[in-house]
């Protein structure tokens, strides 16, 4: 393993160790995602016969909220005690630090998304077949990578520039709209067996572009 990948892995492993010990991100965010699903269940109790539509909506709404919280918590860890500065003075490429944080945030967002997927089945009767559920999980994984790639940059920018924490969703949500559109439509297409074509390309391309943009800009964002 070369130095760059070793640095990515070390940042990721450190975050996992902290999460394993505190369960701060996954527990809080999973409970929040479950609450979103429950609110959907209570709000649309009269229309539960359209469970696929409801389940899909709840899944992606919970994804956005859980992702926002998840990425904030992951970056907040580096904001406390100036820990991010500790990473920046290490002789490692700063994009390795960025990718390590993206990897951690992706893991947390994806884990919570799987819990949400299960919750929509239990509480909203959203029941895709096993192969469809596996495909939806794959879509959630790619969307989680894209969300984390944008979220880490925006969260670091918010923390470093001392912006109010309410600024984070205001900056973040518009940037994840393409992921959300592609995710919702891909989920619907997977359920109905329609062609995935354009939405799949949008999800893949947008995720790739924001990841590359994050690698290119992180160096400047941390010095804001």
């Amino acid at each position, binding site marked *: 393993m070369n*130095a760059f990948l*070793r*640095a990515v892995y*070390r940042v990721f492993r*450190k975050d996992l*160790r*902290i999460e394993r*010990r*505190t369960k701060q991100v996954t527990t809080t965010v999973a409970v929040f995602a479950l609450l979103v699903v429950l609110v959907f269940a209570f709000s649309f109790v009269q229309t539960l016969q359209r469970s696929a539509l409801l389940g899909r909506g709840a899944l992606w709404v919970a994804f956005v909220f859980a992702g926002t919280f998840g990425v904030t918590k992951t970056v907040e*860890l580096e904001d*406390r*005690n*100036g*820990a991010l*500065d*500790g*990473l*920046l*003075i*290490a*002789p*490692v*490429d*700063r994009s390795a630090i960025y990718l390590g944080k993206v990897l951690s945030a992706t893991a947390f967002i994806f884990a919570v998304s799987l819990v949400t997927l299960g919750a929509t089945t239990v509480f909203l009767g959203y029941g895709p077949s096993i192969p469809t559920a596996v495909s939806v999980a794959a879509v959630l994984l790619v969307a989680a990578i894209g969300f984390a790639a944008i979220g880490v940059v925006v969260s670091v920018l918010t923390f470093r520039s001392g912006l109010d924490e309410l600024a984070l969703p205001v900056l973040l949500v518009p940037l994840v709209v393409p992921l959300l559109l592609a995710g919702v439509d891909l989920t619907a297409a997977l359920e109905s067996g329609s062609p995935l074509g354009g939405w799949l390309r949008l999800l893949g391309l947008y995720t790739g572009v924001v990841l590359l943009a994050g690698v290119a800009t992180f*160096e400047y964002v941390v*010095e804001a």
Partner: protein
Amino acid sequence: MTPDVERAETASEPPAIEVEHVTKSYGHFTAVDDLSFAVERGSTVGLFGPNGAGKTTLLRMMAGLARPTRGTITVDGVELAPDDYTTYRTIGVVTHETMLYDELTARENLRFHADLHGVDDPADRCASVLDTVGLSHRGSDRPAAFSHGLRKRLSLGRALLHDPDVLLLDEPYTGLDQRSVADLESVLDGFDERTVVLTTHDLERGVARCDRALVVDRGRLEADLALDDAASFAAEYRRAIGVESEPERRGETTR
């Protein structure tokens, strides 16, 4: 060019740190304004100045945590460049914040930073550093359970892990009680061969610790003083930042 830069250029090896015409601006506000100086190897230099003088900004630029708007900073003959992180191997940094994770133990914190710095035999090095900062019996405890003084010592240990030639200390005495200051001093006493640059408002301790004082005010270098005499330094310092006492002002007038 300052006399120090000239002196450094005539020496056979480059100075430990060379700051040349460095400016740092945030929009219309200039935090550091065209500063130039060199720090000789093995010396201890204090950056003195009132709040907001630009000391911390300067130290952060020397640590590679902020990029100068103009000018260059060279450490050990190598310019700090955005894409060259190798220079960071020679620098250790202690700031107001510990840069530690409260969720990891003291040993795990050190191990993480040792791994990031590519330290050889990291387990032994972490044990040795814990011993140096007097925390070998607290290695399994989390920093969250430490007093401010112990956290500062652990932060110092983190900065020493990769055995840097240059140590940058931002307000190392702030918030420490007498005993913690004495403990910190005893650790710093072992730094004879390292180049140390520190910022402090504690003139007495700063004068006792440093060979040379750079007085910074409103981002500019107001004085570059050898620290032979603590009493005369206090007067020179007040004069440099424009807060000299009435007798001092009269003395200046009569001279």
